[in-house]
């Protein structure tokens, strides 16, 4: 086994594999050190990818040559659109993966990358000399050396599983946690925190009576995440999801057994902070007593396995209570639990100790990505993995790190939030976190990121060509729509075919602003072929969002004035006259690069920023 690599990736989850594959694309000799080499890219929680803001992240990963979009396109068993009718900026897709197939698909991608080695072992400490990372030491005593290390340890750092009163050391159900690495991170000066997340019970498909349940159907449009995937075969078999609802019996099962929940028994066993946006069922009943019914989703996990994921019933109750809870749900009266839900507590590194490239400040060559930074979700992890891998490789080449701006991608929002603001609960991406949401659409992820990614060498020529073709097609179609006006003949056609009554005169572009008209209707009337779905959306959104895009771009420009005020690294915040003590402390810790980042740090008020600007003008 070789002992010297360019980059070592610790962990083979969604962050680790994207990091490794990105390093691979840049020609780095890369090692993935993972406890479970056959479980790379596994989905330990819900078997789905996408949804609002998350599908946007997947699109951005894809625009930068990443793997996630292609992998889910190959392996989904159910895909649908969300937020149709709420606008193209927030519209998203969500897919249920065939869980074992997805895992296999990721393992294949890694094994196809010839310069990536997978080492089955557990990293227990870092080799770090004079604040420069040199490699890792594994459980079996190997020393593996590299110029950069990316840690993507997920929930494994000092992981503890909770099932009622039962607590087991573990990173995931059935897998040993990683001890040692936490101490090593503390030794190099990092502060760690504790988070908690939970998962839901899995049921045996045959024990569920689906007959009375609401069906959540898949979509019959050719939806896909990656521009590089072929349009999906519409005859490809898909599976439905189902919805059931909690009952009074469910409430009683939970409320009468709170003393058995490690969350509510007063023992304080679980100290980690759980996510507000993905509460356990215990949390839901306790915190929202006025709400009588909670939705529960039944999601298939694949064609060849009999597991049904019971989404919405995240719990750490003991097994016998979980059985009562599950059987109180309509359709699940006879349900058999294959695997119970559990909560996992793990260490994370307070992400304000990172810089915007995801490197640990003050330690050369050490990068962190995924849940170790306090995030939650496969997509959030994969996005960070890609950026951390990219920047680790660029660091080795002596290049500037690549930092995605907030107006450039959800990835930028995610990392900027983590670094500037930190997080005290598992951080999930939401579209409302993006102040330039109208600029960050699924349809333009490629416009935002592909040119830079291609230049950096992580996007294939094939993908680059496809991007150029799309771009050109969109530009010429927009030209056409703006210069062509509705004539009498076409107006009649629109009326006859779609019942839209409109008088001749306006340009086709103007016509698109009507809520009852869309691009495919217009092209149909003109006997022109329909565009590929994404291209059509790109064209429509450029026309429909015209005025809003302009407004948001003005805001971006205004903010870039602050962005351009570079903060000298030698600044001593306590010398800034008029700055509040809190701001001095926070700015000293985060050490933002520019005034815009400074303005986003909680506790830093606009007047602190004014004081800062005066100080910078006077002193630098």
């Amino acid at each position, binding site marked *: 086994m070789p002992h010297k690599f360019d980059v070592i990736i610790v962990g083979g989850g969604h962050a680790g594999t994207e990091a490794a594959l990105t390093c691979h694309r840049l020609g780095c000799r890369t090692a993935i050190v993972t406890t479970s080499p056959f479980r790379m890219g596994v989905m330990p929680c*819900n078997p789905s990818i996408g*949804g*609002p*803001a998350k599908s946007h992240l997947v699109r951005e990963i894809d625009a930068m040559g990443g793997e996630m979009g292609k992998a889910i396109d190959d392996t989904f068993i159910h895909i649908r659109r*969300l*937020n149709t*009718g*709420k*606008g*193209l*900026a*927030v519209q*998203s897709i*969500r897919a249920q993966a065939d869980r074992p197939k997805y895992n296999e698909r990721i393992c294949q991608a890694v094994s196809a990358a010839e310069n990536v080695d997978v080492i089955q072992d557990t990293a227990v400490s870092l080799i770090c000399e004079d604040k420069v990372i040199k490699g890792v030491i594994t459980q079996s005593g190997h020393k593996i050396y590299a110029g950069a290390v990316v840690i993507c340890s997920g929930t494994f750092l000092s992981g503890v599983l909770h099932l009622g009163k039962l607590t087991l050391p573990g990173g995931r159900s059935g897998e040993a946690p990683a001890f040692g690495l936490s101490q090593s991170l503390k030794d190099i000066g990092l502060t760690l925190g504790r988070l908690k997340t939970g998962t839901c019970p899995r049921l045996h498909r045959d024990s569920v009576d689906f007959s009375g349940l609401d069906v959540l159907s898949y979509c019959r449009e050719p939806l896909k995440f990656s521009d590089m995937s072929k349009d999906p075969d519409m005859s490809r078999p898909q599976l439905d999801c189902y919805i059931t609802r909690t009952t009074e019996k469910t409430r009683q099962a939970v409320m009468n057994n709170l003393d058995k929940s490690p969350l509510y028994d007063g023992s304080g066993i679980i100290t980690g902070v759980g*996510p*507000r*946006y*993905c*509460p356990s069922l215990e949390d*839901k009943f306790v*915190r929202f007593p006025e*709400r009588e019914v*909670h*939705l529960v*989703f039944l999601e298939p996990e694949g064609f060849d396995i009999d597991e049904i994921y019971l*989404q*919405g019933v*995240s719990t750490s109750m003991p097994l016998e209570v979980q059985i009562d809870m599950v059987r109180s749900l309509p359709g699940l009266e006879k349900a058999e639990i294959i695997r119970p839900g559990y909560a996992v507590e793990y260490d994370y590194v307070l992400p304000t100790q990172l810089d915007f490239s995801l490197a640990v400040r003050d330690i050369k060559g050490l990068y962190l990505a995924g849940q170790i930074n306090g995030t939650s979700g496969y997509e959030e992890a994969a996005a960070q993995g890609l950026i951390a891998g990219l920047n680790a490789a660029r660091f080795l080449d002596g290049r500037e790190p690549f930092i995605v701006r907030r107006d450039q991608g959800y990835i930028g929002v995610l990392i900027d939030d983590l670094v500037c603001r930190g997080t005290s609960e598992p951080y999930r991406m*939401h*579209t*409302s*976190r993006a*102040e330039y*949401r*109208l600029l960050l659409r699924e349809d333009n992820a490629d416009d935002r990121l592909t040119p830079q990614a291609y230049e950096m060498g992580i996007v294939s020529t094939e993908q680059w060509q496809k991007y150029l073709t799309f771009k050109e097609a969109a530009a010429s179609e927009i030209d056409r729509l703006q210069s062509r006006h509705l004539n009498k003949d076409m107006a009649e056609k629109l009326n006859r075919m779609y019942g839209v009554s409109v008088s001749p005169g306006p340009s086709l572009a103007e016509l698109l*602003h*009507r*809520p009852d008209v869309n691009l495919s209707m217009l092209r149909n009337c003109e006997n022109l072929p329909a565009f590929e779905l994404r291209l059509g959306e790109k064209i429509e959104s450029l026309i*429909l*969002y015209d005025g*809003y895009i302009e*407004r*948001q771009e003005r805001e971006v420009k205004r903010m870039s004035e602050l962005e351009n005020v570079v903060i000298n690294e030698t600044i001593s915040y*306590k*010398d*800034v*006259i*008029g*700055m*509040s*003590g809190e701001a*001095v402390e926070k700015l000293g810790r985060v050490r933002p690069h520019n005034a815009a980042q400074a*303005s*986003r740090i*909680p506790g*830093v*008020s*606009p*007047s602190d920023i004014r*004081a800062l600007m005066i100080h910078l003008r006077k002193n630098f």
Partner: protein
Amino acid sequence: MNNSFADTIAAVATPPGSGGVAIVRLSGPDSLRTAEEVVRKSPGWIPRRMYFCKISDGEDNVIDEALTVYMPAPHSYTGEDVVEIHCHGGLAVPNIIVDLCVAAGARLAHPGEFTYRAFMSGKMDLAEVEAVLALIQARSKDGAALAAACLGGSLSAHIKSVKDKILDVAARYEAEIDYGDEFVSSDMSVMRDNCEAVLEEVEGIISMASRGRTLTEGIETVLIGPPNAGKSTLWNLLIGEDRALVTPYPGTTRDMLAEYVNLDGLCLHVTDTAGLRDTDDFVESLGIAKTKGSLDRAELIIIVIDGSCDIPEDFLTVLDSVVKMPDKRLLLLLNKQDCGLTADEEMLRRRFSLDAICRCSLKLGQGTAEIKQKIRDICLKDNVNTKPLNVNQRQRQIIVKLRDNLTSLLRDLDSGVTCDCLLYYLHDCIRWIDELTGENVSDDILDRVFSKFCLGK
């Protein structure tokens, strides 16, 4: 609080003039030590207790007797250590005490610096600071009362209520977007209804603000009348000095003169105008054009007519259009009572539906008390519903932006624009509100979402 305000500042904190008591304020880390050099008092101060003590200069000459109080940080106006010396008023004594403080090491405070420090230490929000600054600058008693009301946070309170409502409606739709499959989507009419209500509230704030503005900045007042009716005489009478050129020749006033007038606490910004008539004189006609412009801006129009002769036909025509202007307060003066009034008061009352008519002789000063009383009555009546709110230009601009955003939202909503774009306007409103209050809290919407809705599959 950052200790960068290493220096201690001193100034007379009360308005200059002949008040009975003045306050000299010291603020900063050395306040107490500085005060002890100025005030004769045995050591030991109980916070916030008034001590009666003598003030002496370096040569032990007693200057004044004063009440002195020590307010240690952070429980003071500025959040710093503060000492206040309540001495006798007037110009001399307080200034000598400040000089003594400066001699003892304090620095003379810049205008507004106490308030600046209060803001920096988080004692006040930006809206409150601006209210204080307005208080310092208020031109009249009513204005001061108004600023004081705002100091209690009334603009902040109104804005907070608006923000709360905007957050509520935004949170609902944001939750539906970010948890697309867990909600039945709300109808857009919920957004419309809520935004219409918020818009109404914002418009209420705007009209309170304009009411407040007239009180602090002076009610825009224009004097009009035919040439030589006595407008300039009235103007001089109101401002109490002979500023306008008064001659027996019609058309003397060609340019407009404007001045602030304080009528027992009611502030007017009075503009004298050229007489309105048809004229061939080029310079004079320019003046008349300006008069028409200032009429548009005016809230109070005082019409001065020479009641001793016939009213010129062309002026009656002018008057016909003046009384039709919306939202104006009108007062008609029948001047030159001393020459015998021949004007038909009843006809004027009816033709122009005027309630407020005064007979007077401005030259002799007859009826001036009645005129002043009428002006006050007219300006302060029928505003019972619109309470004044003190708002400066920057604050006003931001409130107008809220209105514009909400108006655009409602317009776009009705033309079928999608929810993501409509929410843009609400986010923009919240950004402006945070700008107004000087806050910087960008997780507001998410916090609201999580506190209101049970989310998460």
